[in-house]
């Protein structure tokens, strides 16, 4: 991985709120991360921690109202996406940033053929004619491993199985050779055997096409298999970020540690009892004033209830580059 | 000059469904047909008979009617031709009789040809009708818009059961009248044009008649009086305020003519009590517990203010009356006694007759019988207003009234299975209007004969709605049937009329309802007629210059 290369995507201090009847929900709080060319960034965190909202905020996919991106910069190729006009943003979506969503069953339009749906971005962003787009669409389908691609262009989504649909989604996302591919839990809805197929596919495509990928998932196993770097989110914030091996071998944040322990292993020692994280995830109402994890944290102390911790590096490298964590407590024992 | 005045537009809110008067007898159908088909003689605005196809009106004096009153001889005008150019002959006349009297034909005007023994056609222009016995009024057959002459050539194939399936013939009859049918849309619109072979070469002035149907009286009146879309609208019976308002618009005027149509309350002389077994309700087996008391009937009549009824419901289209036969003059009684309301008198009368409010509930009673009536009529706004008003007055004199309104198609439908027909009379009093055809009241008066009482035996088909039975009355009707001479007959009719109304209050006449139509100011020559069809002189209509 080219460690020093300039990032293709640089997100700084992103803040997204939902205005709802019950008040504002601060779904994403000062999230910063970057993505280097060819890198695969894994994002984990429990349900509702703001993973999807973060990614959709980047290219304005959230419905507004109720969503509102309050602050931050999203630099893609030197341009701040948050400052673009809707029309300019459309040029970015699909062309520079590809998106794959969780549920392949509902993410494709049921009444148009698969071919039609792959060709759309091609014709829009690449200015291809219909015939050209069709040829390219067939290539893409073949690329994602769907046999008899040319014929299958005329099929409707419901004629495909879940795995195949997810491949079609990937083909659509890849259609215009985006710089960044964001995959929001692309395999959660799929069976393990199919998941394995998709993961292999992505690995292969990454090698072939060399784009940068953000991969959101619940599943630490998936992360372990494919990510270069991992970002852990909790309560709308990034709580820990590190290269993948570093994270698994030396987790710092109490949440990360707990998370790693709750998952039973397939091969290792079989624990008599599973570790549990007690309590409920936080409700993200209002401006965060304390650590979101405090109520479930075994190590929480006064400061945790009074102050929201900032991300701090723990391996000397600047925050975001190496291993950093947002916690007042430090694993070493000393209070940070 | 024929055809010079272009098109005239006529509106009948009840749409025309056939032009053959023998198959429908609905007024609108008869009237529309009368533009094409003509009888031997018609009636003018005064009820006087005048020849149409006949050369003259046969009478005993001119020898046309035999002295023993058993036959009548009609002479046709010479040179008459059908609209297709063929000559009109006595054979057509005879055929018409055969057509209507065919047992399977279901002719609606059968009554007109009753009592005819034979019809002979000694020559092409002479028709001799022989009756089974003496006919003091021998003019029933072939007179008036309801008994026009059909063309034999056209209708020959339509005798009997085939009558109804002769669609083409019934909708486009060949006639002698001023117009011929060019287009007929059932229950919608009929288009006529001037008959090129009409006997008067200068007539009709209009080249085209459009006779549109559908809607309601209000729309009909409005179309003439307000929007001017039509020249003439038939039967524009609307409430008096609207009459005034529309007339103020100045586009047209309402025309009226009084005939024999009388809105009346009929009294049930038999007991309609629902508690009686079916088949015995409203039959002579059970006389009415209250209404057989003449005082009650009289009091009911006295309590009514007929002028108010007219003012509320009819305006120019009606006038108060005390008679069942209000016209023509030679047979109309001059009763006026009922015209002033007398509530106090009515109360006194009841009081005197023993009907007192013994239990203080505001309702009079006698011998445990409450003065409580069911009062039925058809669904119709004016009638409902009448019901409300009369109920008020009757309540005032201590009579309890329950109102009932029945759909006209049921009420007048004559279905023996329905409890709601006016013949079954499952009510104490009922209100409707009736009249008679032409000027001869004899059949009308014979409705009240004892043997015409409806009941289960005759499938409730009798015409004596009141179940009135008086031998003296029967005897007088018999006398009428053998009396000839207009005045003598007229006198008898007056007596009969009084027996039913003034003397016994079996029938409580309310309003003499005229024909009431709307006419545009640009239509000239229109003369209202209540004895024949309203289009009787369409050949004389012209466009006002």
């Amino acid at each position, binding site marked *: 991985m080219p460690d020093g290369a300039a990032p293709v995507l640089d997100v700084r201090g992103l803040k997204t709120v939902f205005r709802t009847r019950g008040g504002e929900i601060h779904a994403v709080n000062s999230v910063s991360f970057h993505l280097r060319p060819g890198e695969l960034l894994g994002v984990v965190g429990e349900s509702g921690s703001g993973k999807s909202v973060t990614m959709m905020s980047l290219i304005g*996919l959230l419905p507004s109202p109720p969503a509102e991106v309050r602050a931050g910069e999203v630099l893609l190729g030197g341009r701040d996406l948050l400052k673009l006009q*809707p029309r300019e943003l459309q*040029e970015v*979506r*699909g*062309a520079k940033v590809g*998106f794959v969503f969780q549920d392949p069953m*509902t*993410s*494709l*339009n*049921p*009444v148009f053929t698969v071919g039609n*749906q792959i060709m759309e*971005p091609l014709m*829009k962003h690449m200015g291809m004619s219909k015939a050209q787009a069709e040829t390219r669409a067939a290539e893409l389908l073949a690329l994602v491993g769907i046999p008899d691609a040319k014929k299958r262009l005329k099929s*409707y989504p419901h004629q495909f199985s879940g795995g195949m649909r997810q491949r079609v*989604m990937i083909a*659509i996302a890849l259609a215009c050779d985006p710089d960044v591919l964001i995959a929001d839990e692309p395999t959660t809805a799929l069976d393990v055997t199919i998941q394995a197929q998709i993961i292999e596919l992505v690995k292969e495509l990454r090698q072939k096409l060399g784009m940068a990928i953000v991969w959101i998932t619940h599943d630490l196993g998936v992360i372990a298999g494919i990510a270069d770097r991992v970002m852990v989110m909790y309560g709308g914030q990034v709580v820990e970020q590190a290269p993948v091996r570093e994270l698994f071998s030396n987790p710092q944040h109490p949440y990360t540690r707990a998370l790693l322990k709750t998952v039973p292993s397939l091969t290792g020692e079989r624990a008599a009892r599973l570790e549990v994280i007690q309590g409920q995830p936080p409700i993200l109402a209002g401006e965060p004033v304390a650590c979101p994890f405090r109520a479930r944290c075994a190590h929480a102390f006064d400061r945790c209830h009074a102050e929201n911790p900032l991300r701090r590096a723990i391996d000397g490298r600047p925050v975001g580059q190496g291993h950093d964590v947002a916690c007042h407590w430090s694993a070493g024992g000393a209070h940070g | 000059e024929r055809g010079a005045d272009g098109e005239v537009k006529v*509106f009948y809110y009840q749409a025309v*469904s*056939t032009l*053959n008067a023998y198959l*429908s007898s*609905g007024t609108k159908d008869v009237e529309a047909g009368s533009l094409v088909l003509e009888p031997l003689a018609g009636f003018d605005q005064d009820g006087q008979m005048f020849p149409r196809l006949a050369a003259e009106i046969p009478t005993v004096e001119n020898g046309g009617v035999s002295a023993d009153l058993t036959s009548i001889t009609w002479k046709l005008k010479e040179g008459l031709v059908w609209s297709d150019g063929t000559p009109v002959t006595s054979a057509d006349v005879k055929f018409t009789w055969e057509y209507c009297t065919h047992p*399977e*034909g279901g*002719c609606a005007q*059968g*009554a007109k040809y009753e009592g005819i023994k034979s019809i002979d056609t000694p020559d092409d222009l002479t028709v001799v009708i022989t009756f089974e016995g003496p006919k003091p009024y021998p003019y029933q057959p072939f007179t008036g818009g309801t008994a026009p002459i059909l063309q034999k050539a056209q209708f020959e194939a339509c005798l009997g*059961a085939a*009558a*109804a*399936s002769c*669609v083409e013939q019934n*909708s486009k009859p060949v006639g002698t009248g001023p117009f011929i049918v060019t287009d007929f*849309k*059932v*229950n*919608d*619109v009929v288009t006529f044009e001037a008959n090129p072979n009409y006997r008067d070469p200068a007539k009709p002035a209009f080249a085209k008649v459009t006779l*549109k149907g*559908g809607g309601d009286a209000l729309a009909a009146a*409005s*179309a003439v009086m307000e*929007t001017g879309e*039509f020249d003439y609208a038939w039967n524009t019976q609307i409430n008096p305020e609207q009459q005034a308002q529309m007339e103020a618009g100045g586009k047209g005027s309402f025309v009226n003519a009084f005939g024999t149509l009388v809105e009346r309350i009929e009294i049930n002389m038999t007991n309609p009590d629902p508690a009686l077994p079916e088949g015995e309700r409203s039959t002579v087996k059970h006389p009415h517990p209250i209404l057989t008391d003449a005082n009650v009937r009289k009091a009911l009549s006295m309590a009514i203010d007929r002028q108010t009824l007219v003012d509320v419901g009819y305006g120019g289209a009606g006038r108060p009356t005390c008679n069942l036969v209000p016209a023509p003059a030679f047979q109309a009684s001059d009763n006026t006694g009922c015209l002033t309301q007398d509530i106090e008198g009515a109360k006194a009368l009841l009081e005197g007759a023993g009907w007192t409010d013994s239990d203080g509930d505001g309702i009079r009673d006698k011998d445990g019988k409450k003065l409580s009536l069911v009062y039925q009529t058809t669904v119709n706004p004016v009638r409902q207003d009448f019901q409300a008003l009369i109920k008020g007055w009757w309540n005032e004199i201590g009579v309890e009234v329950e109102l009932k309104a029945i759909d*006209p*198609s*049921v*009420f*007048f439908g*004559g279905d023996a*299975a*329905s409890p709601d027909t006016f013949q079954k009379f499952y009510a104490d009093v009922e209100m409707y209007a*009736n009249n008679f*055809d032409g000027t001869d009241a004899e*059949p009308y008066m014979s409705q009240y004969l004892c043997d015409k009482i409806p009941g289960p035996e005759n499938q409730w*088909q009798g*015409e004596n709605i009141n179940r009135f039975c008086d031998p003296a009355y029967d005897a007088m009707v018999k006398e009428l049937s053998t009396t000839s001479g207009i005045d003598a007959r007229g006198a008898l009719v007056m007596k009969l009329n009084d027996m039913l109304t003034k003397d016994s209050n079996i029938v409580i006449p309310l309003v003499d309802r005229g024909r009431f139509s709307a006419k545009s100011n640009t239509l000239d020559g229109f003369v209202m007629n209540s004895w024949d069809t309203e289009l009787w002189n369409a050949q004389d209509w012209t466009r006002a210059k």
Partner: protein
Amino acid sequence: MLSFTLRRLLTAIPTLLLISLVIFLLVDLAPGSPMSDIPLTVPPEVRQKMIAAMGADQPVFVRYLLWLKQFFWVEPLYGIDALFGTDFAQGAQRIISWQSKAPVFQIIGERLPQTLTVVGTAYLIGVLIALPIGIYSAYRQYSWFDQAGTFFAMAGFSVPTFFTGNVLILIFAVNLGWFPTIYDTNLEVVDWASFKAMLAQMALPVTVLALFNAAEISRYTRSSVLENLGQDYVRTARAKGMGEGKVVLKHVLRNSLIPVVTVIALGLPTVFGGAIVTEQIFKINGIGAALIGAIHVSDLPTVQTVTFIFAVLIVMFNLIADILYGILDPRIRYD
């Protein structure tokens, strides 16, 4: 799909037969009588004869079977004869209206054009107004446009047509005199003037009906579009960089129209029958007016035939709606 259609058609036959029987019996049971508009001057014997001549005195089952034969056998023959100039019918007895003594099918044939032009136009216009309103209302949910559209739609089907109709007539036809009050069925469009006359006489009824129809369809459209706007594939389309126009007018609309089209198809039978009240108000002598007229005078053959034709239409359009659904939505494959 074919087999589905066939199966539905097959099951439709017994349903329709049952319906025809129910209608026949119900109408027959009704206490009205065909004699009611005959003046009281006509004596009872004559009435009796007239009833017999119409065949109305036959037992109900005899009449029903005869009617069945006429409806399903004789009338089609006449239809063929009329089309090809053949003579298969050979003068067999048609269904004859008791009231007018004319064949019911001829009456229907005369009435259909009015009904189709007025109610059909109204329906078409209604749909054409409803779709954009519905779509935009949904797209801008809770905007003032949506609120106004909702109000318009609600008012549209809350205010009875006989109320609006009469008020419109009073204002525009009677007081302002812009439009005629009586519909002229003889009017044929041959030139500009007659075209204008046609427009004038259609204006009011079409407005009333179109508003009513538009109200309903716009609500359906709105909720259908709303439903689809929340679907994942819309997000996918946006993520592909599609413009809003394309997202809404292509992706969302196509899906939203599936239920709407079927609603429209289901509403079509009302084009033939449902406008009874409107025809009554505007004096359009269409099918609805014919039916009401026939009911009022107990013209049983007409009532039975016309209501049965409505029933056939309803069944047929139900089927068409289902088939349309299958065609529009590739996920639905019957059998």
